[in-house]
């Protein structure tokens, strides 16, 4: 097997239980509802040394896929191989082959220092202290945490914790990294540092295979060699970022920021000739500012009619711009909704 990660019709259901109703409800068992299909027949082939993105909104099945690959969940159907090992039958070999990094602040011991956290996990991966200690120093330098290495983690900022998470996943030098929303909740500067580290150090310099989940379009666009768009547990499209966007090249995209946007305006905009899709999202609820995204066959013909419709409806236009399709547009086109919906 030449791929670092391969899944064949990987499927995971989660049982659901309904509420108890009626008199003596405490005696009744909760009704079983139809299981939710969290991951549905997912086929992935991720070559070695590539940076592969799983892109989708919250609840799309990204984290469940990562957990299946990391042996934290068992698949209900299908199979998955990581570094050539079966995730069910060879779980320990899979665990030794992967480093996993999750977003957020949990997963570290706050009463230990950064260095002690890393040494603890190194031991649990079977790395001897004489090998682990120099590696820890090297990794701390890599993410610019060496000055704070001996402070307790409870004193770290969120960005520092996230950097520590990242190198914790690298402590046993695994060939494959599973990064689950690695920049979730970080400020823009910290996110940029993490992204550069992932692309430049981990993929380019160290040759790691990386599977990254994100719901940040720009992150996927900037980092990934290949992307699979996932929604409701299914892969609905895949390819390089440019391949995905090229399918959208036939459309022009108009972005309009306006206040006083009504339902009627959106309905009327959809009836304008050449308009394929109109989506709205609130930018500033206090100011009533809304972004309208229009996919049209011909922006030059659509724009005058659209402006006139808006003026008639009483909307006040703040900004109009024509842009190239982004991955966000690809996602809207594929699913009919925005990533952050």
């Amino acid at each position: 097997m030449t791929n670092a990660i391969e899944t064949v019709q990987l499927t995971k259901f989660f049982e659901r239980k309904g509420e108890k109703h009626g008199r003596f409800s405490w005696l009744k068992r909760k009704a079983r509802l139809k299981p939710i299909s969290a991951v549905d027949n997912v086929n992935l082939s991720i070559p070695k040394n590539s940076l592969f993105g799983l892109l989708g909104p919250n609840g799309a099945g990204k984290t469940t896929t990562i957990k299946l690959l990391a042996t934290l969940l068992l698949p209900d159907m299908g199979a998955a191989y990581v570094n050539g090992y079966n995730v069910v039958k060879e779980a320990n070999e899979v665990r030794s082959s992967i480093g996993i990094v999750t977003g957020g602040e949990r997963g570290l011991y706050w009463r230990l220092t950064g260095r002690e956290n890393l040494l603890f996990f190194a031991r649990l991966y079977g790395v001897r202290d004489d090998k682990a200690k120099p590696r820890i120093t090297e990794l701390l330098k890599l993410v610019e945490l060496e000055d704070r290495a001996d402070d307790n983690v409870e004193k770290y900022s969120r960005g520092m914790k996230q950097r520590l998470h990242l190198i914790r996943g690298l402590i046993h030098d695994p060939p494959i990294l599973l990064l689950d929303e690695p920049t979730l909740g970080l400020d823009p500067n910290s996110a940029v540092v993490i992204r550069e580290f992932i692309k430049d150090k981990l993929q380019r310099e160290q040759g790691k295979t990386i599977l990254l989940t994100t719901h940040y379009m720009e992150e996927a666009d900037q980092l990934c060699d290949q992307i699979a768009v996932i929604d409701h547990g299914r892969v609905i499209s895949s390819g390089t970022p440019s391949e995905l966007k090229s399918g959208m090249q036939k459309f022009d995209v108009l972005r309009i920021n306006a206040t006083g946007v009504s339902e009627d305006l959106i309905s009327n905009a959809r009836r304008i000739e050449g308009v394929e899709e109109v989506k709205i999202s609130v930018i500033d609820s206090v100011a009533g500012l809304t972004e309208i995204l229009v996919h049209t066959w011909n922006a030059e013909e659509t724009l005058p009619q659209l402006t006139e419709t808006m003026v008639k409806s009483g909307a006040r236009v703040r900004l109009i711009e024509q842009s190239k399709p982004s991955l966000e547009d690809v996602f809207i086109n594929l699913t009919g909704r925005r990533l952050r919906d």
Partner: protein
Amino acid sequence: MNPELEWLTFKGVTLRHLKEFVSYRASILATIIWPLPLLALNVYQYLGLASTSQVGQILYSKYGIASFSGMIIVGTIVYLLYNRMLWGTGAWLVEERFNGTIESLLLTPSSRLTMLLASGFSSLVEGAWWIVGVFLLSWAIFGVQPAIGDWVAVVIALVSTMIALVAVGVFFASFFVLTRIADQLATSLQAPVRYASGVAFPVAALPAIFQLFGYMLPVTYGIAALRTTVIQHGTLVGLATDLIPLFVLTAILLIVGDLVLKRLELKAKKDGSLYKI
């Protein structure tokens, strides 16, 4: 099984526990204060009714126990260590889940049983001062003199009891993790064991039905073995009746605990339940 990995895991978990234990002075202070009132409570519940010599005579004539305060001191130490296991090792996995670190542990290739054994060992180390501290205190306040006939027998009884207590911790950990209320479960398991295992009085003083329950507890045999060796001049030969059931119960607890833990992990991987907190 990779022996080097298991050793490193054992070392890692033990050192981490100890570092966390000493990182808060309040937890050390609480550990020092906690045995004192418990010891006093156990002793003065007798002395409120009769003098030391009167109590000693009754215990000797009815149950063959030579030292009244020695009996209580041994029982108190084992009970303190048992509590340490309940709250330390028993509640450990639930605490890891609550802190959001359980996934990080389960992602490593280390044996879960090794992690739990290390957690038990570090809990014993944290409570080890009690053995020395409570004896010193008993000598200073109650004038207790140990009556040791065979030091090897003392060491064997002590080590066997500690291993049994670790097994108790592993057993409870595997069951506590089924729920989110480890602290309440631990609390509910304190009093029955204190009552039935003869911490502050001989098990033989209990009604027959409770004696039966008491003889199903490893704590009972640990206390009996230590009493025999520390205050009754007991030798290895006399220990067999306590050590054999202690070993059997230790093996059962470890095997059942490990099996339950494995099944639980499998179930959690099927339905994702271990991470829902």
